[in-house]
């Protein structure tokens, strides 16, 4: 630690450095740092934007955990969504990545087409899928279901099928992104391993199970964690799919209510900002645990 005068002199000398980082740091402080702290304290208040916040201690959290079936419904829906979308999505992406990594023609064409949803607005995707899922016989998906002899499903209006419809859409939309990450991981596997296995007479399936999968483990874990973090934050798809049903953000009987959808409803439709902040911090906690798991367990065990 330099002396006071020295420190001041140093600061003056370094003024350009501070000037260079100032815009980023100021914006960070005002729109990230202060909000994160404010949100934490708001979680212990009742605040409706009009009247000043009133301190209520742990009331919001107590209410959420012990007296709010809608929160548990939202948590359950989000859990079902994550547990469905992450494994299924990553399995399909893995197979796609391995397929593209073979010597296929039109590699770039395939990459481009799988990547399209990643650059498309989630709102647009959800609107398109809502139309694909349209009830009755006019929806394309129902039309095909009927062609195969199944009954048409009232996807968007029935409490059973809204969440699965959203999950199907999300799996579809995430394939390209996961695939590109896995593809990058595949490039790190030395080709000599495959050649050696071939000399030993290993088949394609064998090579996939015994070389590709184990060596891809760090990449796959990374993709799983990123995908889980993103999936916990699902909102736009729910917002679009359930709007126009005449019910709230969660759709009929809250069948698709997600954590963030509930947060949005509480905060910006009911203006119960304190309660919504508490929900936000619970979400933060869940994501923080996943991130910690990533840093501590995954990084240390699989880095080589």
């Amino acid at each position: 630690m330099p002396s006071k005068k020295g420190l001041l002199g140093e600061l003056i000398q370094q003024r350009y450095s501070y000037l260079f980082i100032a815009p980023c740091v100021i914006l960070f402080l005002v729109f990230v740092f202060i909000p994160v702290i404010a949100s934490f304290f708001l979680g212990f208040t009742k605040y409706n934007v009009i009247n000043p916040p009133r301190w209520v201690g742990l009331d919001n959290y107590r209410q959420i955990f012990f007296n709010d079936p809608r929160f548990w419904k939202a948590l359950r829906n989000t859990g079902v969504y994550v547990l469905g979308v992450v494994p299924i999505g990553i399995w399909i992406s893995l197979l796609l990545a391995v397929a593209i990594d073979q010597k296929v023609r039109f590699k770039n064409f395939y990459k481009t087409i799988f990547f399209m949803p990643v650059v498309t607005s989630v709102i647009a995707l959800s609107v398109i899928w809502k139309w694909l899922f349209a009830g009755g016989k006019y929806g394309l998906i129902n039309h095909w279901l009927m062609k195969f002899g199944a009954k048409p499903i009232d996807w968007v209006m029935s409490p059973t099928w809204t969440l699965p419809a959203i999950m199907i859409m999300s799996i579809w939309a995430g394939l390209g992104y996961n695939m590109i990450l896995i593809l990058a991981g595949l490039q790190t596997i030395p080709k000599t391993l495959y050649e050696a296995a071939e000399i030993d007479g290993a088949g394609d399936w064998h090579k996939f199970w015994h070389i590709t999968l184990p060596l891809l483990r760090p990449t796959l874990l990374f993709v799983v964690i990123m995908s889980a973090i993103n999936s916990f934050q699902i909102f736009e798809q729910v917002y679009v799919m359930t709007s126009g049903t005449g019910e709230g953000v969660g759709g009929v009987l809250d069948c698709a209510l997600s954590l963030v959808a509930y947060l949005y409803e509480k905060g910006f439709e009911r203006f119960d900002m304190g309660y919504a902040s508490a929900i936000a911090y619970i979400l933060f906690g869940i994501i923080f645990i996943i991130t910690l798991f990533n840093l501590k367990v995954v990084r240390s065990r699989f880095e080589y």
Partner: protein
Amino acid sequence: MQTALIKAKRRTTQIIVYAFLTLGALSMAIPYVWMIVTSVKPIEEIQTYPPSFYVRHPTFAPYRELFSILPMWRYLFNSFVIASLVTLCNVFFCSLAGYAFAKHKFFGRDKIFLLLLSAIMIPYQVNLIPGFIIVKNLGWLNSFYALIIPNMAMVFGVFLCRQYIMSIPNDLLDAAKIDGCSEFTIYRIIVFPLIKPVLATLAIFTFLSQWNSFVWPLIVINTSSMRTVPLALSVLNSQFGFGANSAMVMAGATVVTLPVLIVFICFQKYFIKGIASIGLKG
């Protein structure tokens, strides 16, 4: 005999691979094709059964209807201005800060950087409510300020630029310093040109995320004239829904999607390379 068997095996694998990829590609393309096909269908054809990909009498009427019901040009203008300004600011501020963090020695540098970096772990929903309150108190609701200023310098961009600038040799910067260049001149004539590739990636992703951004605009924009294109699409969806208005809603989806998709298909290499490098480092 042996080689024939191996060849046959390889061919089956190849067939499976191509079949799988083609099926996947089809399932990717169909929703987009269906969107565009629906958007040019006259109303009679939307309500005929079975639904068909062939349009007998294609028409631009749904687009005309869309642009007459909603001020879509205004929304496109809003989205474009916001995305462009946010992108320019990010490229400038993030590279400037990235340069300082990578090459300058100053008091508290590493601590400040770590603090910034911690922002990446925080889900944006946590900032939503206080962010709204701050913007409201600044009187920025329903204005460009609310959509532009909070996003002008994203931490992620600083991180990206810093990583890239660290690889610039110090000798280059020292030489310029000996020649008497000021700090900003060094940034302008040495650092900036050298990091253009990473700035291109940053620009693409910032523009894209702003163009597609939904939740923040949803919260801070209430007036019709300040909407961005995704907000307009969501309004179309909730107010007109499907049925008779399907063609118009799909026209709206096409207007949001097509500009980005065309740019993406032209520059797809940069996009995909960018995501692979960013994703694995981030």
